[in-house]
């Protein structure tokens, strides 16, 4: 049933804050069932907070004090605040929330699994899941092949479309969208706009300009200080200047020839940057603009092609995610000596002067974006690379950003700016459409395409040798629960057996055999061996020096081998998603907690990649070791917690109960492979027992 929304005098004060961050005293409104409300406000006005209140997250999942009146379809969300640990389940069932981009808003790494989560939680039949996901992808404007990709590998625009897909997939009756058009190209934005306007749900859309929604009859709520309307430079549709002409004899400060990265699958690009010239990089959502910027700035190493850059250039990058540049400490600490006066001037222009000494965690997204620009510009870079510098900013501030970029170019810097923003227009700009205009190599020395390094080839060959294809194919499909059970079994056996070389060795050998059959990963094994060998040596030696007998000491070492061998069986290949599926299906593991654990563990690869990127961005300005890097990474992880908790919550992981379990997209079963593994282990056990009996007989 489509709900109506009633709201009056709503005030929200987060736990620990001195003042309310959303204050709608005197505002009273009613959105009829199936109606549309547009919330308009500038960056930091509280649009996201209001949507979170409507999603039922405030005072429940997010601690704090919610007052006033707010009911959605008869569910009293103010009464729920402070009483429930999350939004009321009745409310969650019909909720779709599209959070503001461009940070990934997924709970599970692969888009298909992430999109299935709301359906599983709401007990859709398995057969109905694929059609629902495909239909929602079409409505979000997302190409179907992207379903197999990781959300973290998608471009900023595609991530918004992915979030829209997840919000739409279960057919919500209340649809909340936070800046859904920021960062999308015109075509993708128009498609999503049409979808949102055609939805039958009650819809609430937050934007910085009500005109974006394009429905003049919609009810509009303006919050925060009214934005001053400054129409800067309506984009003029002149024919593009031809690239690489009209530079006279100016030499490019940076030249890229067919550069690409294996880490992110986008087409190779060629371009040149000239001093004093802003290059505006345009291109469809998902064409790989951010990757190109990272390659240009040198924070992502180019595996292919060549990047020629004049030495002694001061390169600065203002990334799409400002947190990568800022870290956990106040922006002022990111400034080099002598940059403070310039930073203060820039910060005043961008209205963030009071935030220079405040930890970025306490600032809004828009404020952090402006702070990152301040830090990047304060260094007076000779090459400035900026990714969507005006995304989510209102007209006035977008105009200020354009003016500051102009100043930077006028001072002789080469600019490379990726943007979707039709408002952004720079003096003497050159527009470059990616990939159409970056595909042709600029006239320059012949490009090189590197082959895989010989070391990688050798590793592949050894991998083939170590784990034979046939048993690997057969056994690789074993249920992770079987593997976990066997690892525990071998561990217990090792624990129960006497600490002697013979007894522990008898356990280790068959386990190693099983591990080999099930497909050992060479690198992981070598890494384990590298840790294990000295650990065993140290343990044996320490036992001897501590007064243990030789036999006891060697036995303690052998036990470590037996332990580690079990670890191999369980881990190769390690598939957390299948393990979680099996645990939910066969062990009745609680859905919400299992998914929370899985979603967090799934961030490990992203966390490592992000730490690398963070280090590379910071190295642009600081060559010395950066002890705060680890702290910043951990801080960023903790700061990402609410977003992940919200992602899980709005997908509805708290809906299933013990009596009404979730449905599953991926069935978890046991098969031939499991039987074979158990048989192999039973054979190993037999060897152990025979060995023990033989020992007992031979000992006297």
């Amino acid at each position: 049933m489509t709900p109506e929304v009633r709201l009056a005098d709503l005030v929200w004060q987060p736990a620990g804050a001195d003042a309310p961050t959303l204050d709608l005293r005197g505002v009273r409104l009613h959105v009829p069932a199936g109606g549309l409300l547009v919330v308009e406000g500038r960056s930091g006005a509280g649009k996201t907070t209001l949507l979170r209140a409507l999603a039922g997250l405030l005072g429940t999942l997010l601690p704090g004090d919610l007052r006033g009146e707010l009911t959605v379809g008869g569910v009293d969300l103010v009464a729920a605040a402070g009483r429930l640990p999350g939004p009321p389940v009745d409310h969650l069932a019909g909720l779709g929330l599209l959070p503001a981009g461009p940070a990934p808003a997924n709970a599970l790494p692969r888009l298909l699994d992430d999109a299935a989560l709301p359906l599983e939680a709401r007990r859709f039949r398995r057969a109905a899941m694929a059609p629902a996901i495909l239909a929602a992808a079409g409505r979000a404007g997302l190409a179907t092949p992207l379903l197999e990709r990781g959300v973290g590998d998608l471009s900023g625009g595609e991530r918004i479309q992915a979030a829209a897909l997840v919000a739409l997939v279960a057919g919500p009756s209340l649809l909340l969208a936070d800046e859904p058009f920021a960062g999308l190209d015109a075509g993708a934005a128009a498609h999503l706009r049409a979808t949102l306007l055609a939805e039958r749900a009650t819809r609430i859309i937050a934007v910085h300009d009500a005109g974006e929604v394009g429905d003049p009859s919609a009810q509009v709520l303006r919050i925060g200080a009214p934005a001053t309307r400054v129409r800067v430079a309506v984009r003029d549709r002149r024919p593009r200047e031809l690239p690489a002409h009209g530079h006279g004899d100016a030499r490019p400060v940076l030249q890229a020839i067919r550069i690409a990265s294996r880490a992110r699958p986008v087409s190779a690009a060629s371009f040149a940057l000239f001093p004093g010239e802003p290059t505006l990089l345009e291109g469809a959502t998902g064409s790989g603009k951010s990757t190109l910027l990272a390659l240009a700035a040198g924070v992502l190493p180019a595996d292919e092609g060549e990047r020629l850059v004049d030495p002694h250039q001061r390169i600065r990058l203002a990334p799409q995610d400002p947190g990568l540049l800022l870290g956990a400490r106040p922006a002022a600490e990111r400034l080099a000596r002598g940059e403070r006066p310039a930073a203060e001037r820039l910060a005043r222009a961008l209205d963030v002067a009071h935030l220079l000494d405040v930890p970025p965690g306490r600032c809004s997204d828009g404020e952090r974006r402006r702070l990152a620009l301040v830090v990047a510009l304060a260094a007076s870079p000779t090459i400035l690379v900026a990714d969507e510098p005006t995304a989510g900013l209102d007209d006035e501030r977008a105009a200020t950003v354009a003016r500051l970029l102009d100043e930077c170019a006028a001072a002789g810097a080469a600019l490379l700016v990726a943007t979707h923003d039709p408002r952004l227009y720079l003096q003497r700009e050159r527009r470059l459409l990616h990939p159409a205009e970056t595909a042709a190599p600029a006239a320059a020395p012949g490009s090189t395409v590197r082959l895989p390094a010989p070391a990688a080839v050798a590793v592949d060959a050894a991998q083939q040798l170590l784990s034979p294809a046939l048993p690997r194919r057969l056994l690789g499909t074993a249920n992770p629960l079987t593997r976990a059970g066997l690892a525990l079994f071998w561990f217990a056996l090792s624990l129960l057996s006497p600490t002697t070389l013979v007894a522990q060795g008898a356990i280790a050998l068959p386990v190693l055999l099983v591990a080999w059959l099930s497909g050992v990963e060479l690198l992981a094994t070598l890494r384990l061996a590298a840790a294990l060998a000295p650990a065993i040596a140290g343990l044996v030696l320490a036992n001897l020096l501590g007064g243990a007998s030789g036999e006891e000491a060697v036995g303690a070492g052998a036990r470590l081998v037996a332990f580690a061998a079990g670890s191999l069986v369980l881990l190769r290949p390690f598939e957390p998603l299948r393990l979680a599926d099996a645990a939910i299906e066969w062990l009745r593991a609680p859905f919400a907690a299992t998914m929370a654990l899985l979603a967090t563990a799934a961030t490990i690869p992203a966390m490592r990649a992000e730490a690398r990127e963070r280090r590379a961005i910071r190295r642009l300005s600081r060559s010395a070791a950066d002890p705060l890097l680890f702290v910043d990474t951990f801080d960023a992880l903790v700061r990402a917690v609410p977003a992940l908790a919200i992602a899980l919550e709005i997908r509805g992981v708290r809906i299933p109960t013990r009596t009404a379990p979730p449905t599953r997209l991926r069935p978890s079963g046991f098969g031939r492979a499991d039987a074979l593994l158990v048989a192999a282990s039973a054979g190993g056990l037999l060897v152990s027992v025979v060995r023990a009996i033989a020992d007992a007989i031979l000992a006297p």
Partner: protein
Amino acid sequence: MNGTANNDRRTAARRTWSLLDTVTVATVGVACGVLFAGWNLLWGAVSPLFAALLPLQYLLFAGTWVIAGPLAGLVVRRPGAALAGEVVAASVSFLLASQWSVDALFSGAAQGLGAELALLAFGYRRFGVGVALLAGALSGVGMALHDLPLYFAGVDAAFAQALAAAMIASSALVGGLGAHLIERGLRRSGALPPVAA
């Protein structure tokens, strides 16, 4: 002005974990688990150097392995958080291939239980530096109770006592005090909300 109402709400909410609590514990656990996996390698690498001075190795390096318990307990402040945090961290280090294999889970449980008992002793009301030190120290007791019989069954009593002392001291300083400093840093940077006094 409405202190009573707020306090009532807080106590009521305290009984159930929200997804925010679950994800926070999981995040602390996973991050520490990755740290532990690296520490396992370091531990392996330095083992031969310290073979003659094993208590010293424990004093210098062992405390890192218990930090997840006190940290999760101080950050989330709910019953069970410390135990869950250390067990998650141990599981992750095990899943990333650890030389201690499944036993990492049992070590983690023993150490996490120590930290949990320290927080329980103060009724989950106090989370200052003293409580953090105690949580670390009790984690060290858990480590000693688990490790000594399993890996050092045959050693002299004096050697075992030296090892236990090193484990407890290291756990209190690195695990307990370290967790306290990290928690304070996180609250100051705004990554965690400040706690109402």
